[in-house]
């Protein structure tokens, strides 16, 4: 029985030969940690890069921007987001939730980055690359809070999501709109101070911050500061209007052109969620749908917008497809569709007489949107499209805006103006569109110009809104928001529709949002 005693001796050895302590110390295999990363400029700038991407912006830019900025303002017609046409928006509405979620998600990204980078700096990190990155975050945070203040008026302000989440106290109130705007402005001021004069194309600079501040000042009717900031951008000489207006929205090669001050960065890639521009199918005419490009024309130009264009305004065909519109380079083809293929063989023609199954187009307003529609796909003569995704940036601030802000800020609420520098700014925008220069201008001239210049860019609602309730109501109620067969005029616009309701789901989780706003400062 000797062997048994040997085993008896082995037992304690086997049991106590517990694995070394590091057996259960397992570092991350697929990532790294904030503790041991962000140690050079490239690592830090790769982080701020996500702030420009569709990853956080997606649910705003895809659809919410259209529904709020253009459907609600009467620029677009839709069968889907009908409540934005009729102002029967409820707090459960999808697009409101989309925009809200996206905006606060972007702020969440920026908040955590600011905190992480500040901690890196405190731990001895190099300020030469951490400071500009922090300034980029401030730009994003300021811009988004500005958007939030325009969209909802009073709204919550969050600066440290980690601490808020760990505290478990989600009873965050709405703050007064003026305080949200002030917070946004202060963010942009920090951005202006910390951002470089210039950077690689697409990255925000001092001038992006100045431009966004000009827009914010104009919104707040602080004309002097709006004018000053716009002027700083103009005087920098770094920006100009591009000749190819349409290309700004439809050609990847024109991403981050000389007119762009701030744009959501898109790339063409197989997985579009967070990478690609998703506007292509929502806007594309059904006749242009191919195996490469989805197109379901969820949003089409409104009849009222079509009426807005002056005779000879080149922006009409740069922005809208109507009967007779052509693009000879586009030759979409489909499997087993000989009539369609024959019709498209010599290039795309927008035709309301051709049967729709054979390539014709006959929708509610007899028109489709050109902006941000990249085309039927690479094999069919356009920029590449992958299903729902194209690679065009979504421009949020461009030089034409700065010029028109400058002109409007110069007017400063007066009846009309013939200030030569202001006229020069306005006429630069007009002349690109092939229109005769103005010799004097009014607020309405500016509004008209802004409407057609920025049509389908998600901005016109805020132009209407900042006119105040009485004028906004008048502007809205004279718009035809219907179809060629059934005109539709809104007659019930009330003041409570000037700002969007807080999403229902949010109030469920934060009942404070249902109460009156309080001061932040």
């Amino acid at each position: 029985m000797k062997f048994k005693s040997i085993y008896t001796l082995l037992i304690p050895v086997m049991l106590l030969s517990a694995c070394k302590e590091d057996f259960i110390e397992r570092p991350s295999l697929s990532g790294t940690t904030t503790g041991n990363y962000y140690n050079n400029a490239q690592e830090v700038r790769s982080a701020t890069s996500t702030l420009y991407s569709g990853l956080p912006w997606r649910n705003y830019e895809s659809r919410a921007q259209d529904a709020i900025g253009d459907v609600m303002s009467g620029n677009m017609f839709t069968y889907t987001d009908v409540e934005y046409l009729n102002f029967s928006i409820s707090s459960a509405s999808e697009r409101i939730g989309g925009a809200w979620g996206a905006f606060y998600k972007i702020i969440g990204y920026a908040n955590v980055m600011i905190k992480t980078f500040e901690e890196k700096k405190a731990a001895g990190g190099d300020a030469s690359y951490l400071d500009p990155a922090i300034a980029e975050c401030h730009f994003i945070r300021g811009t988004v809070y500005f958007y939030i203040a325009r969209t909802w008026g009073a709204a919550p302000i969050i600066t440290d999501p980690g601490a808020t989440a760990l505290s478990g106290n989600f009873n965050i109130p709405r703050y007064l709109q003026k305080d949200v705007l002030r917070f946004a402005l202060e963010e942009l001021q920090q951005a202006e101070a910390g951002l470089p004069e210039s950077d690689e194309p697409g990255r925000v600079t001092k001038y992006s911050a100045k431009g966004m501040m000009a827009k914010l000042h104009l919104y707040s009717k602080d004309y002097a500061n709006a004018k000053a900031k716009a002027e700083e951008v103009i005087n920098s000489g770094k920006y100009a209007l591009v000749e190819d207006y349409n290309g700004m929205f439809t050609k990847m090669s024109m991403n981050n052109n000389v007119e762009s001050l701030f744009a959501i960065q898109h790339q063409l890639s197989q997985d579009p969620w967070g990478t690609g521009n998703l506007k292509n199918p929502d806007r594309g005419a059904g006749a242009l749908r191919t195996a490469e490009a989805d197109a379901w024309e969820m949003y089409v130009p409104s009849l009222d917008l079509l009426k807005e264009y002056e005779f000879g305004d080149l922006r009409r065909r740069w922005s809208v497809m109507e009967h007779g519109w052509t693009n000879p380079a586009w030759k979409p083809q489909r499997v087993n569709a000989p009539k369609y293929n024959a019709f498209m063989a010599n290039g795309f023609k927008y035709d309301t007489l051709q049967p729709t199954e054979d390539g014709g187009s006959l929708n509610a307003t007899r028109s489709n949107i050109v902006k941000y529609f990249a085309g039927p796909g690479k094999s069919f003569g356009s920029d590449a499209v992958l299903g729902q995704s194209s690679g065009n940036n979504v421009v949020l601030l461009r030089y034409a805006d700065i010029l028109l802000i400058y002109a409007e800020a110069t007017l400063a609420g007066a009846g009309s103006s013939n200030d030569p520098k202001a006229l020069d700014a306005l006429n630069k925008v007009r002349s690109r569109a092939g229109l005769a220069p103005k010799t004097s201008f009014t607020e309405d001239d500016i509004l008209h110009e802004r409407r057609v210049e920025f049509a389908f860019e998600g901005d016109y609602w805020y132009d209407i809104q900042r006119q105040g309730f009485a004028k906004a109501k008048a502007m809205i109620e004279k718009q035809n928001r219907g179809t060629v067969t059934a005109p539709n005029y809104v007659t019930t616009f009330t003041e409570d529709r000037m700002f969007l309701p807080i999403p229902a789901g949010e109030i469920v989780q934060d009942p404070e949002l249902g109460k009156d706003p309080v001061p932040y400062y």
Partner: protein
Amino acid sequence: MSCLAGAYAQDRTNKGATLAKNQVAQASVKGSNQAINPKAVVKGTVSDERGNTLPGATVSVKGTQVGTTTDADGKFSINMPAGSKVLVISFIGMKSHEVEVGNRTTLDITLQYNDQSLDEVVVIGYGTAKRSDVTSSITTIKAAELKDIPAAGVDQLLQGKAAGVTVTSNGGQPGGGVSVKVRGVTSINSNDPLFVIDGVPFVGGNTSSSSGYAGLGGGDGQTGNSVMAMLNPNDIESIDVLKDASAQAIYGSLAANGVILVTTKKGKQGDGKINYDTYTGVSEVTRKLNLMDLRDFARYQNEVLPIIGNPVADEFKNPDLLGKGTDWQDAMFQRGAINNHQLSFSGGRDKTTFYLSLNYFDNKGILLGSDFKRYSTRFSLDNQLKSWVKIGLSANVSRSIQNVSLADAAEGTIWWGASTSPLIPVKNLDGSWGGGQTVGGVQYNNANLVGNSQYRGNTKTSNNIFGSFYVDLQLLKGLSLRNELSYSLGQDNNVAFQKAGNVGGTSFRSKLIDSRSDSYYWSITNYLNYNKYVGKHGLQLTVGHQSQNSYYQAISGTKVDLQANIFDLNTGSSDQTTWGLSGGKGQWAMESYFARANYTYDERYSISASFRGDGSSNFGPNNRWGYFPGVSLGWTVSNEKFMKGSVSNVLNYAKLRLGYGVVGNQNFPSGAPNPAYVGAVQFFSGPVGFGSSNMINGIPNPNLRWESVKTANVGVDLGFLGGRIDATIDAYKKVTSNMIIFLTGPNLIGVGDQWDDLKAPLGNAGQMTNTGVDIGITTTNVKKGDLTWKTNVVFTQFTNRYDKAASAASALDGKVYYNNYLVTHTTPGRPVGSFWGLVTDGLFRTQEELGASLPQFGYKVNQNETWLGDIRFKDINGDGKIDAQDMTFIGSPLPKFTWGFTNTLNYKDFDFSIFLQGSQGAKAFNFLRWQLEGLNNAYTNQLRTVNDRYTAENTDGALPRFTNTNKNNIAMSDRYVEDASYLRIQNITLGYRLPKTLLNKVKISNLRVYGSIQNLKTFTKYSGYDPEIGSFNNSIKLMNVDMGHYPNPRTFTVGANLQF
């Protein structure tokens, strides 16, 4: 339950009751011949198989009160009364047996250790225990109770068979997910119990995912599939479910959701056996929805198109001229089929036993494009190498191929099938696929699901190997050491593909998403078992150590424009912008110490205590180790003197049990970084922003610690009328606290738990309580001659309460339809997964009612907003307006109780069983009906019920008016919450055993043929396809949410069991 019967059958043997004949045969007797002496003194020695003498063994004369016990050397001496011929010898932990004394006066008796046969022992984790010694709540199910049910996995088979275990199929998808919950809803994270198959734990849970359809463009359905589908149910011998913490604590941090111990079949000593089992069957959908046909649809068009300002098409002007159009339900459902073949060989000789089985299982689903095939084999070998060494190994190898139809999402196959307009043909006259038909200038459904099924697919192929190798050393008498190496290897290939072509209004670009992953797991477990019996004292000790290690890696590639539609990544376009490539890996390790002590005294009192310490790589240094104790007490009242006598004629067995324990949980919510306590930086597989980007993906919480589950259990085992009625009743209270959760709140916080969210910090928050009662009753109603009738009743009742959330404002939310609609929201005090929404209060039917209306979400009274025929909601908070704050609890998805009721009849060579199963009191959120009765969409098909909607002519209509502008009518509300109670005739089987006389001629030892019907009939008020909905991908946030859920089929099978 039958185990319990076995357990005290043995008790009775100790008191001298009759033993089964086969047990007699198992003792070896060496005796010396002597002349018969009418009053002879018989002497002898009792020892075990290894020659160790057994002191304290009971020796009694059968049929008398005469008895004695062996002395310290295992010797006894007994006076045989005249006429007595048989001695009964018994000893705890050994098989009792009877000896015919004959003319012998000295006997050497060898008792065999209990062979773990099911009737007598319970598998308790790192060991076994006699049922009579068990003091905690453990339910045992034998293979015989699970036979004849055609199912892919053991998880599905447990439905209605084990008290305290709530099993719902998550859908009829072959090989699809099964939601198994042991005693209520334990955690807000995964509730998958730990399955341990012959000692191999499946730590990854019971759900594996396949890829969704999102990559092809479309709504993802359920991607969760049952891991247990890899194990052939025919290989299972028994299942033990550890239900309370005193039993589970030995598994520590893996046990919080319950532990299901599966014991597979082993070879037995004796003649080899060849078994062939087979069944074949067909299946069909049990119910169809009452949808509009083309005539109804045309009438509907004529009425609703003017409301949205569209002209009515000439084609619809006279509906009576039209045909019925396409029945899309006929088009999407098909006749399913099921086939199973199992061949097994087993036997044992010269201290070696083996078991080998081969299985082929093939199940074609009732929904287009869904099927599941499995090839599996299991092998086990055990050898008593030396008298003190036993070794064994097992290997289970399986390959399964599953085509996932991803049926049950909004928007999935069934969603589209039910809502596609009947005017769309499956195929056009020219042979092309229907879809995108334009009528009156309006283009109807672009998609054609039948066409799609020919062009798109999603196939998951899994190869799995798992098993173990062990060495058992008998070190000293009563002391053994077991060393066990368990392993599992997994390899998955998941292919989602789309061929180039045109379906209706959609043009498909060919595309291949080819994802592969592999994983391995191993554990090394060493433990000592020590058994000591002295007189009335019995002691069992277990102490051990375990190391576990797990690793996985995955890679996925995507290409488009495949040459000739060949599904090979090399055939795709060379344009790199069209490529997709991503991967990932992770690991996990755990080290554990465990110990258990059982002490029994005089078969009356027992106490068991166990303890486990787990250190896991999932937690940071601050809280890396978790400690899990458990203790339980048992009192076998029926062995007390005062229970003897006439009481025992009625109540022949009674045991009280009391247990308390703490177990842990380290299940993380999906999307948690690995490890979770650090702030992770995440990288993207494709370009983001300016190209290569990264993202901070987690706010560190170094204090993250174990989720804790404390259970108190009180139970009683009762036997009446000499085993005619056995009952086990357990009541428990289970408190889960420190749940591991993403500390998310409203979106405005800016961090969350979605894939593109910056991840909220993980924290320990919340508390949840489950209280419940499990009752299992087995009765032998008739046992007379050739007729036996047995009944088994299983009753499971629990109430769940989410006591505390992370904060007053945070809650558990379940959203559907691309995350757009919140349907569940659990606030403290409510059951988890509670439905949330507005409360309806009829319709506005008159101008007066409209005039008195409260503003609903800021709406005014006009035709575009609130108008006649709209839904009136209740002002829950009484603030004079209807808004989000009037949303409230509108129903619980949890049943009040579930039950199973099985009757088995045997008459001569016939057997018949009927198994009823049901669920009472659960509500379901019928989100499919939201689409089919929404009355907000003019172009998709609707249920016929919408004919009774409010119109100027039908002001008494049951449903609201049609409107596409008032969005409040389709707000989430109690309008879509339904009673999902049901009673189901789950299985009826009739079998016939062919006469032996006939079989012997062809060397067949046994042949049984049977026919069976599964899911014959369901009695329910639920209006959807199937009231058994389960949890979407096993998420407790989406229990009983029906988004066009894959219904469970009705299956008719015939089968045969053949033994040579």
